[in-house]
């Protein structure tokens, strides 16, 4: 935001943000691939709709002689349904939060999340 106020072009900033964050994702995938010695990568979820991310991962897998797959675009937009379904399960298990008390927890550890419907 500070850069934008300094007069930098919005599209340039968005492109930079995308390049940096996708490079991070690709590098993490690369480390995982090398570490566990696998030869296949499958990209799913909302991010699978992004052509740049697919390209980066494809280039990376080619460098490691691994195969790359990406789900068809029509199956990429399922996040809303996942969130809604989790909401239904939480509601049915008695997990409720007032709108006033709801906020974002950016560093919520996945092993700290209560899942009462699994007990």
């Amino acid at each position: 935001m500070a850069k934008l106020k300094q007069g930098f072009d919005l599209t340039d900033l968005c492109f930079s943000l995308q390049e940096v964050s996708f490079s991070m994702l690709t590098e993490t995938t690369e480390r995982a691939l090398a570490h566990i010695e696998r030869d296949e990568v499958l990209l799913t979820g909302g991010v699978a709709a992004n052509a740049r991310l697919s390209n980066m991962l494809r280039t990376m897998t080619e460098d490691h002689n691994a195969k790359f797959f990406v789900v068809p675009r029509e199956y990429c937009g399922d996040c809303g349904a996942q969130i809604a379904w989790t909401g239904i399960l939480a509601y049915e298990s008695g997990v409720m939060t007032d709108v006033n008390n709801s906020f974002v927890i950016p560093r919520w550890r996945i092993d700290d999340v209560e899942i009462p419907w699994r007990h």
Partner: protein
Amino acid sequence: MVLIKKGAEAELFLETWCEKKVILKRRTPKSYRIPDLDLKLRSYRTIHEAMLIHQAKLVGIPTPLIYLVDTINSTIIMEYIIGKQLRELANESSELTLKPIFLRIGRSIGKLHSSGIIHGDLTTSNLIIDPQKRIFFIDFGLGKKSLELEERSVDLFLLKRTLNSTHYLSADPFFSWVLPDISSTGPLQTRLPT
């Protein structure tokens, strides 16, 4: 140049340089990143790793000598440590020989952590015991400066996991020798010494 290890990020070569056996660590370009970002990341990480190796020395932890840092080719030329990896040593030695070594490893990790250095990849392959019984810490490629408890515990957790998975012995005795030693050194330091 003999390739001795190819990691996800860098290649390690064994080379002769100024009549010395040296390790040449080169971070290879990544074709999936745009060249500007790729060059910036590789040179930053090269400098950062050399700095961590140096800072570990300042608190008395043996690490390889740095002979050359080449940011343009993202290459570090460093001392080749002759010795045995802890991974090999732990498998072929008795508990009696290992106990003093593990006590010293525990103290060394304590020194690194209380001076704000997180190793980042503390496996039994990254600890080398030389013929003079010095314990060398190598490969700070994933290291960082941090005083967070969580970062420290990730270091210890990884060491415990590698001990459990690659050795016949359970890691528990190693940790039980070291833990009373740690608690006797007083309260946990969470601020950098000035």
